[in-house]
């Protein structure tokens, strides 16, 4: 058997980012001046060590479920793979440009769904001719129907998620990163998008899927990564990892 081709390599990755953490001090002009005079850093800024020494290699045809509790660094890891959040140390190597698909990813809310389709595709680097030929397919896949002529601000969160997924999956990606984007859709859409992920895997792409629905992970992924407080706890066959994960979460109860 030929050597499997790696598509994503994470090499001892650490990610630290600064966050503005709620209220610190009274937040008045006087306190702000005192802070500047004393040369203090803004008290509200805290460093978060979100991902700690994570190493793994993903191969062509892999669909990898990323599981873990809220705040364990799953989304952060995905954003780092997408190249949107550079690691503090270590390196992430990717073949081709990964695309990240998340729930809070908004397009332009004042514009109609139809214009968002065109803009989104142009931003991904598709040509006008390509968009014209794929347009019907995208709208059909999103299942938005007549709402496509209305501004996106009128869409429900589920509808917006459907449209975004449809746009992002219009292009063939070598690496697709899906961050909970399927959670808001209805059952019918979930089936369709799971099919799309399977197709993508079959085309020898690599899919990363962050999900709290373990069934979805079991259905669509062959492999899973378990993150716990930023540390990689387990990496292996999807069924085994999910089993170990459920074992621990139920044991802790």
């Amino acid at each position, binding site marked *: 058997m030929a050597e499997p*081709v*790696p*598509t*994503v*390599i994470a*090499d*001892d990755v650490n990610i630290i*980012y*600064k*966050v503005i953490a709620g209220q610190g001090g009274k937040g008045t002009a006087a306190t702000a001046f005192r802070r500047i005079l004393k040369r203090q850093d803004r008290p509200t800024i805290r460093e978060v060590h979100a991902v700690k*020494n*994570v*190493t*793994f*290699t993903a191969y062509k045809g892999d669909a990898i479920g990323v599981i873990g509790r809220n705040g364990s660094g799953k989304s952060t890891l995905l*954003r*780092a*793979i*997408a*190249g*949107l*959040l*550079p*690691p503090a140390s270590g*390196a*992430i*190597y*990717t*073949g081709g*440009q*990964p*695309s*990240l*698909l*998340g729930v*809070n*990813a*908004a*397009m*332009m809310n*004042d*514009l109609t769904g139809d*214009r968002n389709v*065109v*803009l*989104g595709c*142009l*931003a*991904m*680097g598709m*040509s*006008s001719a390509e968009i014209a030929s794929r347009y019907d397919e995208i709208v059909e896949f999103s299942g938005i129907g007549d709402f496509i002529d209305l501004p996106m601000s009128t869409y429900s969160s589920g509808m917006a998620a459907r449209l*975004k997924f449809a746009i*992002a999956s219009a292009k063939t990606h070598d690496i697709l990163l899906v961050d909970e984007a399927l959670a808001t859709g209805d059952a019918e859409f979930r089936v369709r998008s799971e099919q799309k992920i399977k197709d993508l895997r079959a085309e020898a792409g690599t899919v990363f899927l962050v999900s709290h629905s373990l069934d979805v992970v079991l259905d669509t992924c062959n492999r899973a990564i378990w993150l716990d407080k930023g*540390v*990689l706890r387990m*990496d292996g066959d999807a069924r085994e990892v999910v089993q170990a994960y459920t074992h621990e979460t139920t044991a802790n109860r």
Partner: protein
Amino acid sequence: MSNAAGPAETVDLAALAERHGLSRSSARPPLGGYLRELWGRRQFILSYARARTYAMYAGARLGSVWQVLTPLMNAGVYYLAFGVLLGTKNGIHNYAAFLICGMFVFTYTQRSMTEGSRALALNLSLIRTLHFPRATLPLAYVVNELNQMAVSMGILFVLVGVTDGFAWRWLLVVPALVLQTMFNLGMTLIFARIGTFVSDISQLLPFVTRTWLYASGIFFSIPDKLADLDAPGWVIHLLSLNPISAYIDLVRRALLDDHSRHALPNAWPIAAGWAVVVLAGGFVFFWRAEDRYGRG
């Protein structure tokens, strides 16, 4: 199997990545490649600019009529304040055209800067969703302002046409605006980067631009003012280095009949120099942070 890895495996992974031609995910592309990528997205820049214009006026009853009304009303207010109430027009033939030339040219650069400083901050969600060269956003903002400038220029042509009549030197407006647009692109890229990392800049910019407004000879003629004050000869050369003054002067030379008396020295070379330096510098400045936009 992974966490206990020693340095040996680290070397291995980097080598494995290189063997299969993988690249670092958050590395910024080389300058040439970045330019090519940008050129590939020119359709996106235009569509995005158009969509933004549409969204901007979508809620207003008069719609994009405001594109014409806003500069007209601006010109009216400044004419009332400086031409009528303060009586600054001394000795300038067709003061209304003189003033409005200055206002429109200035507004073009000012808006490019202030809007540009928010170009990335307002589009964070788009940046975090899709991968595209980030410079497309500030560039689209300048396209918007250029579009507005074209409308304003149309108004100015009508005004000067009615008062002074058409002349062939009007055509010089085109190279003048090309140079100014280059300058604005550079400024927008610079402030887009600064505004992303230091959001305080959007509080500060209005004061900077307002100071610039009063120093650029928009309401009065700089040479006349200096002659009144008996200033030494080098002062005019110093003040002429102000890029805004140069761009305003070029448009005035093209449109106004009697402007040679008030013209600034060396306006063309100064305007061209600023355009090239600021565009090239601004582009490189913006590109150097390409891998950091949208972080946090």
